[in-house]
């Protein structure tokens, strides 16, 4: 190999650390005590030393990392694909076979990370060597690339040919076994760095990032950066923190509560549509159904948010509030949500509506907010903005959450709902598992949206474009 000119575009830190980790595995594999047992392999009539079988590699990986065979095969395959281990039989096929196929470790000289990036000049010399050594040894794609390079770096072609000849002459003076080994190593290197057409390019890293690395340095060392860091740290120091034991207990409880509702963990009744091709589960749990499932109704009792997020739950809750003559609270909350998440252009109009319906003295659906919040809100309404109702909305939300919601859960309305909720039967596994059910399509939500938009005429309500809660 020639001396590389200064490589522009070094490896990114992410790529470098990946290579380093793979190299650590390699080094561990070659450790005299804990590493792999290597032996001499016969290749035709030559004996290649320090080789191992695919099976050995996989066994070693299983023992070292305590993983299953499939994972060891996959990890080993990565090592082969990145050129750290190369096959002796069928060298062009960079695959790890879990049998007696012989493999060898690539020398660090030819690691991708060592000689990054592979230079055009070196590739040209390699192809020239192959061409000179044996006419017709170049593959079709290599011939194409060779002639392309010949055009592109024509001015140094004498140098290329001269180098190729020199290297061939030097290699003739080596022992045959060494020569074969070197040829294999070099070939493996170029299979990775200049993959044949149709073979995956392992060195495709995607887009370079960070993208603004040129501006990164001044940004980090400016005074403003440190000042804002100091400000953030000061604010963070002032935070209230909760004890770990309390927080972590919270996660355990949450996961336990929702475990039965997690289809991937516990399955779902009657069956998971993706597995059985039967959409009964989705039909039974549509937004509005005559009889909801038991799990769904149970979920309403997990938190107030769960109840409000479910269209049916919200409807039931509204019915309950109407009985209690406090339905205006939920109406108010919904109207505030529409202000917060709706179009900017409609804010003023909606704020006026809310004021008229809920806050003005003598309003039809007057909501009971404490005087301080009311004053603040009324003041803010004079210059309405998206968040002007936030305090009032929060107040009413917590009022419902702390008062009406717990009572709803104890009410007959909820208890009856829970009692008549259905628990679907588990679908018996099909007698003929090979016969696939026909997969039915469903109406696109876009269609529902388009119809609703037409019905509305002027896009006044948010029902079409708004949230589906």
């Amino acid at each position, binding site marked *: 190999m020639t001396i590389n000119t200064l490589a522009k575009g070094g490896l990114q830190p*992410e790529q470098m*650390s*990946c290579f380093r980790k793979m190299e650590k595995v390699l080094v561990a594999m070659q450790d005299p005590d804990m590493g792999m047992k290597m032996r001499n392999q016969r290749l035709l009539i030559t004996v290649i030393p320090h080789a191992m079988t695919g099976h050995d590699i996989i066994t070693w990986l299983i023992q*070292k990392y305590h993983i299953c065979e*499939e994972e060891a095969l*996959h*990890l080993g395959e990565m090592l082969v694909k990145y050129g750290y281990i190369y096959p002796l039989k069928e060298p062009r096929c960079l695959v790890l076979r879990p049998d007696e196929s012989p493999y060898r470790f690539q020398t660090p000289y030819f690691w991708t990370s060592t000689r990054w990036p592979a230079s055009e000049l070196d590739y040209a010399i390699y192809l020239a060597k192959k061409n000179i050594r044996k006419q017709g040894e170049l593959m079709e794609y290599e011939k194409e690339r060779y002639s392309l390079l010949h055009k592109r770096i024509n001015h140094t072609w004498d140098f290329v040919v001269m180098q190729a000849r020199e290297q061939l002459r030097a290699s003739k003076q080596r022992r045959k076994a060494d020569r074969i080994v070197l040829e294999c190593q070099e070939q493996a290197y170029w299979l990775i760095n200049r993959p044949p057409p149709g073979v*995956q390019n392992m060195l495709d890293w995607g887009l370079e990032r*960070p*993208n*603004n690395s040129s501006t990164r340095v001044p940004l980090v*060392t400016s005074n403003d950066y*440190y000042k804002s860091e100091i400000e*953030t*740290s000061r*604010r*963070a*120091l002032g*935070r209230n*923190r*909760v*004890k770990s*034991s309390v*927080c*972590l*207990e919270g*996660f355990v409880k*949450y*996961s336990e509560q929702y*475990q039965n*509702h*997690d*289809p*991937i*963990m516990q399955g779902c009744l009657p069956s*998971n*549509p*993706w*597995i059985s091709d039967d959409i009964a*589960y*989705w039909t039974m749990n549509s937004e509005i159904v005559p009889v909801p499932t038991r799990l769904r109704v149970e979920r309403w009792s997990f938190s107030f*948010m769960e109840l409000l997020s479910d269209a049916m739950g919200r409807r039931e809750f509204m019915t309950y509030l109407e009985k209690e003559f406090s339905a205006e609270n939920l109406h108010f909350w919904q109207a505030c*949500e529409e202000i917060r*998440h709706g179009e*900017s252009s409609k804010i003023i109009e909606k704020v006026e509506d809310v004021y008229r319906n809920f806050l003005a003295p003598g309003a039809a659906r007057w909501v009971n907010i404490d005087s301080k919040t009311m004053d603040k809100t009324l003041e803010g309404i004079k210059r309405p903005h998206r*968040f002007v109702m*936030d305090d009032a909305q*929060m107040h009413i*939300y917590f009022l419902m959450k702390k008062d009406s919601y717990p009572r709803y859960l104890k009410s007959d309305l909820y208890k009856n709902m829970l009692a008549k909720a259905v628990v679907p039967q588990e679908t018996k596994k099909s007698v003929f598992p090979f016969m696939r059910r026909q*997969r039915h*399509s*469903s109406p*696109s*939500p*876009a269609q529902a*949206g*388009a119809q609703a938009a037409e019905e509305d005429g002027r896009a006044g309500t948010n029902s*079409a*474009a708004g*949230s589906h809660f």
Partner: protein
Amino acid sequence: MCDQTFMAATFGPCDSCSKASPLMNIYIKSEAINYCSFCVEMMACQGLQKGETLASLKKESENLKKKLEEERGKLNDVELHQVAEKVEAVAALSLKTRRVLKGHGNKVLCMDWCKDKRRLVSSSQDGKVIVWDAFTLNKEHGITLPCTWVMACAYAPSGCAVACGGLDNKCSVVPLSLDRTENLAAKKKSVAMHTNYVSGCSFTNSDMQLLTSSGDGTCALWDVESGQLLQSFHGHTADVLSLDLAPSETGNTFVSGGCDMKANVWDMRSGQNIQSFESHESDINCVKYYPSGDAFASASDDATCRFYDLRADREVAVYQKDSIIFGASSVDFSLSGRLLFSGHNDYTINIWDVLKGTRVSILFGHENRISRVRVSPDGTALCSASWDNSLRIWA
């Protein structure tokens, strides 16, 4: 003899940089300061207060960060895996590929589920955005964008539109029409404008607002109708690669992660950075909230995923394994939050027990890097998007 006027000048160590040089004797707020002329100029140009230098600010910042770590440690009375000892282990999972969505001509970079639990949108390096009914494998809509590398896509909550963006530095919203002959790209509306690529986007609770993250180091909140910038979020010092909205009842915060190895939690209303976590050793590729909204997980190029508790204000778990060498590009939780799925650059998906910190299972099948993993809205399936041009549904 010349008639010269001399200005009395002192010579000695500068108050600021301690170098011996001619000093300027100036007064700031009646206080005498003796700085060399260079330091005076620095002070004037950079808005420093008396006594501040770049070095002193840096030191103060580092001290505060150390103090913050100490404070965080004070309430750390137990570890997650200790609390999880009494919890039953996760039963063996048998997730299999149930659908393979083929149709993209190049790497699939992003995907998002529709609220109807079966449709999804995906975007690719070749500029195409496809809306699928993943259940029937039907391609329902196809949009061709004029740019390559569409790195971000999101389904609107109503199901009537999708947002997409990438190397064009924009994020556009495309209304989905059922008229097959209509060219959807014509109806595309540019909403977000950044000065670098758009790495992630998400609708907030309605179709009307869009949150984006960008390679220019900022996140931004936009009004879809007018394209107006409602709020911008500054604080990252490198590309922001991912964001996620909090599922909290007040719905006001989101988390972002970027190439500066930091994960920041933001208040959407004020634009302020509320909390910051800096424990990864490499770029953070993805952030995702725990279903309760009290925590979030992050996936990084350092081949680990981490779990951060927002109330305790610290990292509480690291999900890593010796045999996992390649960076994680994406994470998502199962519905109960007990399982964490991470997609890696070695073409695999690892499944972790969030509470116990162990790796439960590994999924093989893709033939190139995983760019995104997302659990469906009702938790029945996991979708993975990959650089092998396909998406897979696992259940």
